[in-house]
């Protein structure tokens, strides 16, 4: 029976020009966004390759500099796009994508896209993730709000009940019809994305397939919740105009108001110190360590003595190594601890702020799917933090190598340290290790749980209350 009602509802949707128009518009928007997203990704990848080339050429042309000077000269690390950034840009436009890596200084990423845009960036993005999570639910609600009311007004619902059709089957026929249309849209988007990716030379790795499945699956579950709620409201509210208003207000609350309020609540519950306070606190802690550049620094003198004792010599001019390199390394290692402490605290606070959003996802399925969508696309805050960590690790390895070269690449002649000529091209460029899909799930399990809970709860509610919906309109 459900299958027959499902086909009946599909025919009703097909005969309604407005519903067809809305679905065609949604399909066009999704396909267009996939195409534009892929093109944006291509432009960004080309830009990154170009920047890398310039930066590497500058690095390889270094001549006549000591390893320590090269540490100050530094290098640049460029953030790659997320695995499915073409489908969901996530936080990428708001986070820095260039990190300067140099000795003694830990620089946070800078040059975000948003920092060179006007306030247009505040009005949303035209990517598939946003369209699926934000726009499509509204279109579905506007298509489905009168689904039951229409049958009630035309008397079809009464006839069906009179023929012994369970109301539950009627509702499920409608839910499955609208959800099937939503699934067609999600599938069309997925196929378009894969097609564009393959034709432009991309490779479908296991991780990409898993991410794509997660991305499409989470949106599919969210759209199921939206459809069940839309049909449910249409069934329980006798007046279709009231149903429309309820769905519009619910959509507005869920996708526009609540996410903003939640984000602000999170930052008020777990406030971050200001940038000035943060920088000053780091500076104070940094000053408590060894100062590799200050010849009178007490900690430096103590370490110098320790090194002299280890080598069993009286002064630095007798050492078989350049003491400067060893002192700089000790200075940097202390700086690393300061970075770990301060940035660790900051990241922990941000994690707590996101935790508030994750908790609210149990009240709002939109926030659940938004987090999952970004995570599967590899463009959420957690993926961004991974980039920051990897950039910092690269900095430590690079500076450690340079300090080691500064200490050892040379020879002592008559008490003077003579540096060898060093080919800095041997120091490899930054390679970003992409995170696997498990990383996304590991950080976003609350949202996944919330979305599943919403799906289960809405299905149970629909089943439980289906028998009690009004069969006739006003004056029943």
């Amino acid at each position, binding site marked *: 029976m459900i299958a027959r009602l499902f086909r009946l509802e599909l025919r009703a949707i097909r005969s309604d020009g407005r519903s067809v128009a*809305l679905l065609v518009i949604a399909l066009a928007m999704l396909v267009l*966004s996939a195409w*534009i*997203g892929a*093109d*944006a990704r291509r*432009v*960004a990848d080309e830009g*990154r390759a170009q*920047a890398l080339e*310039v930066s590497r050429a*500058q690095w390889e042309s270094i001549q006549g500099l000591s390893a320590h000077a090269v540490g100050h*000269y*530094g290098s640049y690390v460029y953030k790659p796009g997320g695995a499915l950034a073409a489908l969901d840009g996530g*936080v990428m436009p*708001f*986070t*820095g994508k*260039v990190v*300067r890596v140099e000795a003694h200084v830990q*620089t*946070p*990423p*800078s040059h*975000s*896209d*948003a*920092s*060179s*845009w*006007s*306030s*247009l*960036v*505040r*009005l*949303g*993005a*035209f990517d598939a993730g946003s369209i699926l999570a934000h726009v499509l639910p509204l279109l579905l609600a506007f298509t489905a709000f009168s689904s039951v009311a229409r049958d009630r007004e035309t008397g079809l619902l009464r006839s069906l009940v009179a023929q012994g059709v369970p109301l539950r089957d009627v509702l499920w026929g409608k839910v499955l019809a609208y959800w099937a249309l939503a699934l067609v849209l999600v599938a069309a988007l997925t196929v378009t994305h894969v097609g564009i990716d393959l034709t432009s030379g991309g490779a479908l790795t296991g991780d990409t397939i898993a991410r794509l499945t997660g991305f499409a699956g989470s949106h599919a579950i969210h759209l199921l919740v939206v459809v069940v709620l839309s049909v449910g409201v249409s069934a329980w509210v006798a007046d*279709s*105009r009231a149903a*429309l*208003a309820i769905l*519009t207000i619910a959509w507005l609350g869920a996708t*526009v*108001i609540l*996410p*903003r309020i*939640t*984000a*602000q609540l999170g930052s008020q519950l777990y406030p971050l110190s*200001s940038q*000035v306070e*943060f920088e*000053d606190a780091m500076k104070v802690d940094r000053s408590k360590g060894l100062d590799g550049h200050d010849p009178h620094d007490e900690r430096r003198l103590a370490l110098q003595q320790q090194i002299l004792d280890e080598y069993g010599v009286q002064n630095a001019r007798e050492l078989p190594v350049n003491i400067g390199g060893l002192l700089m390394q000790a200075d940097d290692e202390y700086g690393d601890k300061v970075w770990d402490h301060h940035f660790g605290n900051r990241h922990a606070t*941000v994690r707590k*702020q*996101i935790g508030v959003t994750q908790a609210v996802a149990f009240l709002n399925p939109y926030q659940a799917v938004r987090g999952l969508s*970004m995570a599967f696309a590899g463009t959420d*805050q957690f993926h961004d933090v991974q980039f920051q960590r990897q950039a910092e690790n690269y900095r430590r390895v690079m500076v450690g190598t340079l300090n080691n070269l500064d200490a050892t690449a040379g020879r002592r002649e008559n008490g003077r340290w003579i540096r060898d000529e060093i080919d800095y091209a041997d120091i490899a460029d930054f390679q970003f290790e992409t995170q696997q899909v498990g990383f996304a799930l590991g950080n976003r399990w609350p949202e996944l749980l919330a979305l599943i809970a919403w799906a289960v709860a809405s299905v149970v509610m629909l089943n439980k209350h289906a028998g009690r919906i009004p069969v006739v309109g006003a004056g029943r």
Partner: protein
Amino acid sequence: MIDILKALVRFEWMRLSRSRMRASAILVFFACGLYAIASGQHHVSTWKETLDELTQRETTQREQALAWFSAGRTGPEGRTWIDVSQARWADRYASAHAVMEPEPLAALAIGLSDIRATWATVSGMGGARPFQTADPATLGNAEKLLAGNFDLAFVFAYLLPLLLLVLLFDVGGLERDLGMMRMVRVQSVSPRSWLLLRAALPIVLVAMLALLLCVVGGLWSGAIGATFGSWSTFTLLVLGYTCLWGALFAAVLAAGTGVSAAALWMVGLWLGFCVVVPAAVRQVVGQEHPSLYASELTTAMRAERYEILLGDVAEHEPAFYQARPNLPTSEPSSRASGSTRRRIVQQAAFLDIVGDVTQKMSSDEIARETAVARWGWVNPAYVLQRALCGLAGTESVSFRAHRDDVFTSVTSRLDALVGPTWNEQPFTLETFEGLFEHGLSQRYGLPPRAGTWSRLLVLLVIAVVAFVVLATMRGKRERQAGVI
């Protein structure tokens, strides 16, 4: 006519007071507005706290040096290499910042103030430091930025049309559904005037709500007292935007397509103008003018570290002396003085590069914004937001002006170091205090650009014309069909 108007007001009031849905929508809108003002106010107070922290930072560092001057010394005991009578150390200890002060209206339109840096260190010899202020977003929660602001500008640009939608979507359709149109016809007003009057009442109500929120926001933020002109323009823009949406929705109602279709059209318009068009324009213009990986700036920063700092200073001297023809050309009397001169020449060469790069970045941004502005005719939400944020000094144009000011302050600071260094005059208490002037604290609120009003006006005219045409067509159709 007056009687009809009175009757309509009574009718609308009755509908409003009896419809829980409408009353709740109005209350929710007003509550959102109040929350937005409180939230914006919180943001501005955090902004001000940062400025206080910078002042504190400046004071601490300056007082250290002033204490040395008072004690007849030039640096701390035990750290003999610090000498504030020399340009390098005077520059460091005469700590100064170029800061963007929030306009009172910034509490109502946060704009980009949580994305872009609102301050920078002013240092003549600090190398790249003044231009390396981190992206605030990177140090914070980017997902919060993605979720978006909840300021009054957002409430007006985004939520106000939705409130109008909820109040208007069944105007006309209700009469048709209840079979009242024939009765309307026998009254002394035409169906078009009836529709217009009925639509006008909710529009006036929403405009009054918007005005009330503007007054509350203006009083709370102090904008009415401090910048009344800007606040008035802000309010006028909001009222104009309300009329625009009212006219757009009235045009939809004039088509007389029934409640469901009217609601669909209205949501379509709102979705198009407030969600799809702004996002699509951003994406399309982003393709035309991508913001890539700032290679020009990173190259300039590297130049400061390598080509300029470690390169041959003689390469940069001709340009330096050409720009400052009155400088004495005598040789420095000491090695230290020579080293400071070289550093200043290198820094001036670096600033020349930064100046070029800053100009290039600004022209890229302007090109992008010009491309976005071309779509302004179909992007009213953005046109309004841009104008409101411009007034509040939180739009990109304000940040560009701030960036230019940072550059000017740094250049002035460097120039202030040149004279004493070349004349070999140590910094005294007076000349040291003179360096404090390079700190800058400015507001950047700007009146709306010329195209703002015309863009909103053109859309309004189109909506009014559409209303007249659609109402005429509908009247003709209904007369033919015998509905009225």
